[in-house]
């Protein structure tokens, strides 16, 4: 005997939904949007946290910058390295030449590269004078492969390769240059650097070393520790998380409305259940039918909502959540890191928060109707 393509109960549920296509479509859309609005802020804050963790993981233990009465000023490279290395606890010190310049489509971070660093992807040669390695999100001039950058001076560089793999979130929006080109562009004199990156062996030294390190330099310096940077990011994330809650409130109100409408709708169709019971359907059959019906609405709604939320947050250059929740977003990165474990946890949270109440509303109502007397249900309903 040929088996039916659809289980009879599933086919019945589908026909039931198609009898009222507008109502069913609206229900799926409402659920989809509720899931999306609930999941997007949660995914966004989680992704931002993962991204900052990734970026801080490879950050130096300490960053020393020189200041004078006018603010930041370049630091003498060789002298600062010698002074830093004289402090017990410093295992490495490296002067860095970097800064923000204007690119063809917005601000970019340029980093001067020499044989001491920063490390380049394997099989990538150091950029020579007039050459650049551009990050994956850097937009070039129309006359590719050239890139025009404007800092203290303007320079047009030939793009000779990519600075990082596509997945490297921290390096998607940077341009690596020959260190002398970077100095020219940023207006940093020869023998000077933007700041000094320092490594310590023991993380406990990051804070303990500060008085000795500050005293070692004959200039006014500002030292930022990795812990301090993590704290700044954590404070920013807490603020964004708080703002994200503001998005959850209307979503949860919409969910309450959705649940109320579902309960009312199911009570409004009690006569159907009464009729089916009068025709000989068992309580189990009716519950299975209603579960199938709910799944036909819930699964596409919830799945679509999660996919939409995912695309809104993780689609390359989809930076609207950042602009909305985090104004300094453009300066951070244009691509967020995705952690499957965390995303799975959020999926479970949203399922618990949105889909389960929806399912409970339907099944609870149906159970109450299914165990009632069919004659009473038919008599009480005016149809």
């Amino acid at each position, binding site marked *: 005997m040929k088996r039916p393509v659809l289980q009879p109960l599933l086919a019945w549920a589908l026909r039931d939904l198609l009898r009222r296509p507008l109502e069913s479509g609206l229900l799926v859309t409402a659920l989809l949007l509720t899931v999306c609005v609930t999941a997007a802020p949660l995914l966004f804050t989680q992704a931002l946290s993962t991204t900052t963790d990734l970026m801080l993981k490879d950050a130096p233990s300490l960053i020393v910058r020189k200041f004078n009465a006018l603010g930041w000023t370049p630091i003498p490279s060789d002298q600062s390295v010698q002074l830093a290395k004289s402090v017990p606890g410093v295992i490495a010190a490296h002067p860095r030449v970097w800064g923000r310049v204007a690119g063809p489509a917005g601000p970019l971070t340029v980093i001067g590269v020499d044989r001491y660093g920063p490390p380049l992807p394997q099989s990538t040669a150091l950029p020579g004078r007039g050459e650049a390695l551009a990050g994956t999100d850097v937009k070039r001039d129309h006359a590719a492969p050239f890139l025009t950058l404007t800092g203290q001076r303007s320079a047009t560089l030939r793009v000779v390769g990519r600075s990082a793999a596509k997945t490297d979130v921290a390096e998607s929006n940077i341009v690596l240059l020959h260190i002398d080109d970077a100095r020219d562009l940023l207006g940093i004199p020869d023998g000077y650097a933007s700041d000094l990156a320092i490594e310590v062996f023991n993380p406990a030294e990051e804070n303990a070393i500060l008085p*000795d390190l500050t005293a070692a330099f004959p200039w006014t310096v500002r030292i930022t520790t990795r812990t301090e940077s993590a704290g700044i990011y954590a404070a920013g994330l807490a603020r964004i998380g708080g703002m994200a809650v503001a998005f959850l409130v209307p979503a949860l109100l919409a969910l309450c409305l959705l649940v109320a409408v579902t309960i009312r709708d199911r009570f409004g169709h009690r006569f159907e259940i009464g009729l089916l019971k009068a025709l000989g359907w068992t309580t189990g059959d009716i519950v299975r039918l209603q579960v199938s019906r709910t799944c036909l609405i819930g699964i596409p709604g919830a799945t679509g909502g999660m996919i939409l939320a995912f695309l809104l947050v993780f689609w390359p250059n989809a930076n609207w959540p950042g602009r909305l929740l985090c104004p300094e977003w453009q300066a951070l990165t244009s691509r967020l890191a995705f952690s499957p474990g965390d995303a799975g946890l959020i999926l479970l949270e949203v399922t618990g928060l949105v889909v389960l109440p929806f399912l409970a509303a339907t099944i609870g109502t149906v159970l109450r109707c299914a165990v009632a007397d069919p004659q009473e249900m038919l008599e009480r309903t005016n149809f």
Partner: protein
Amino acid sequence: MANRLTLRPLFLIALCLTGLLTLFLWGSVAARAAGPGSGPEPGRKPLDENNRMQISAQDRCPVCGMKVAEHAKFSSAIQLKDETTFYFCGTGCMMRSWLHPEIFLAAEKEQLQTPVVRDYFTGEEVDGRDVFWVAGSDVIGPMGPALVPVKGEKALEAFKRRHGGKTVFRMDEMNDDKWSAITGRKAAK
């Protein structure tokens, strides 16, 4: 018939007791067979030719049982004369084993050869007898307040300025009395 019914539970109890007794005896014999010679498990790899530690992911501290690779900043080692090497989660566990190898390493004191520790500031692996040891500082190791190895007098001054420290000693000055005075506990416990 009545007798058979009365004896059956007694027979079952006797059977269970015999089983338990057999298990107990087997366990005792197995433990004796393992004997003091088997002792704690040494590290998978010995020190290399430069006396640098080669800690494997499976190596456990013979004193507390913690995984050594998870506490790399404070890890240390003792190599015996037969090149058997034990890795430790922290310097405290290493020092206790150095004082009482017969308890923690199942080895005689004469078999001890090289204690290797990491300098607190640089992470350089050095002989524990060549560094200053600081106790009573604010540095916390894997097992609590740490015994900190610091190489050089300049580094020692910097360490004391940053982290304090009640006692400074050399490894050959350490004994049971000093351990008790520093930690308030017995090293051999």
